[in-house]
């Protein structure tokens, strides 16, 4: 699998695709969707679709694709090779969601949570297949959330397509297993050969599985914590593991959209909050009201200085 298009800029999301087999534009097709790397605090999350003619379901079964989680890395590579050899009737597409995309989405002013991000990515991939002329009739989706609601949502978005959403779909439907293999192979490659955009010199790549409870991952996160910047973009800042470590070991950073106790924020900024007017010691002993600054200056945050 060639992941170089993603590696040219691994801070953003990237789509990798196979050729669309001609037969998929002519015959009714089934399509499977699965993801890899939802839980880890390191690296991207990869969404994958795999599709083939409904008439080739048995042929796909004969390739002996199975749930990617039950396979070793070498077995997955091997199966991906087989899928590639079957490219006359099997096609795939991947959406690599970079850890930076995950962080900045989840930490956005208007929060964009992982479920919404996942759904939108899956929907985007199905739409890609349709736009490429694949004659979709059946879609099978693996999910971690409630299946019924998701199934309803997808059925409404794609009328005329029979949508099946199941937990553990990757072990029930070979076309979903195939999608999970494509996604997992891509994630493995990306994590293994991660090119740090930061200038960190030689980086220790012994980061384990990337799951927060892996001792190797934990040790790596401790080793690569920078007191100012926190982490390189390889880390998902929105994960509580990363946040907790930064809270205890990095300098505190305040953003204007943060939910912070009003009184505390005011104290920090060395001015008084509205609340203090209701306190026992309230009363106006602050600045001289005759020295009120003109709007021209406050709007530009300009102030006259008499000390540094």
């Amino acid at each position, binding site marked *: 699998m060639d992941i170089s298009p993603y590696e040219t*800029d691994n*801070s953003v999301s990237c789509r990798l695709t196979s050729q669309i087999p001609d037969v998929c534009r002519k015959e009714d097709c089934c399509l499977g969707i699965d993801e890899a790397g939802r839980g880890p605090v390191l690296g991207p999350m990869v969404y994958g679709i795999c599709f083939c003619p409904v008439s080739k379901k048995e042929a796909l079964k004969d390739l002996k694709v199975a749930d990617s989680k039950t396979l070793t890395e070498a077995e997955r590579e091997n199966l991906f090779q087989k899928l590639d050899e079957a490219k006359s009737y099997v096609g795939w597409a991947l959406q690599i969601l970079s850890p*930076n995309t995950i*962080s*900045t989405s*989840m*930490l*956005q*002013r208007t929060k964009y949570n992982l479920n919404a991000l996942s759904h939108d990515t899956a929907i985007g991939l199905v739409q890609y297949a349709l736009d490429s002329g694949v004659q979709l009739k059946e879609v099978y989706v693996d999910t971690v959330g409630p299946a019924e609601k998701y199934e309803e949502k997808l059925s409404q978005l794609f009328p005329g397509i029979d949508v099946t959403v199941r937990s553990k779909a990757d072990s029930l439907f070979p076309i979903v297993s195939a999608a999970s293999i494509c996604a997992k192979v891509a994630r493995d490659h990306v994590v293994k050969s991660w090119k740090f*955009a*930061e*200038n*960190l010199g030689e980086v220790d790549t012994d980061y384990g599985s990337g799951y927060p409870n892996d001792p190797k991952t934990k040790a790596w996160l401790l080793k690569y914590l*920078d*007191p*100012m*910047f*926190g982490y*390189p*973009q390889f880390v*998902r*800042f*929105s994960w509580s593991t*990363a946040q907790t470590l*930064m809270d205890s070991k990095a*300098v*505190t*950073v*305040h*953003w*204007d*959209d943060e939910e912070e106790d009003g009184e505390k924020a005011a104290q*920090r900024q060395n001015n008084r909050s509205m609340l203090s007017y209701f306190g026992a010691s309230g009363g106006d002993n602050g600045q001289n009201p005759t020295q009120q600054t003109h709007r*021209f200056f406050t*709007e*530009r*945050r*300009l*102030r*006259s*200085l*008499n*000390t*540094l």
Partner: protein
Amino acid sequence: MSCNTSVTHVHVSSVDQAQKAPVHLIPCEIEHNGPAQVSQYFTATIKDRKHEKTVSFRGRGLKGQELSCPQGYTGLVLKEINKPGSDQEDRTVKVSSVFDKLTYWNLETPPNSDDTVVRAMDWPDLAEAVSTFNKINLKFMVQ
């Protein structure tokens, strides 16, 4: 309230030795004053797209652009040489670096001409216009 009677002196002669330095204005408050690995973590990850720059800091997306200092002005980065023991003592700062442009960053919002710091640069022109009527000299700084 402070009753500060001390005077702050700027070592103007240090301007000549001061190097130009890249300056970033970021939309958050950092409880730290001191060195940081800016070029390794921050500058190295800035993406320069057509009309805006993008980067992230602590997992939050920033969009920014370069802003020149007003014509005839130089930006100064000041550093205090010896911290005084009390607020009654005079203070001395030297110019540690200079800049004629800076990069300012917004949290997620694309930079535009309504941004506070862009509008703040209106002041020198206005100040000059005002001072031709009135010989008032106002010191200013961007908060």
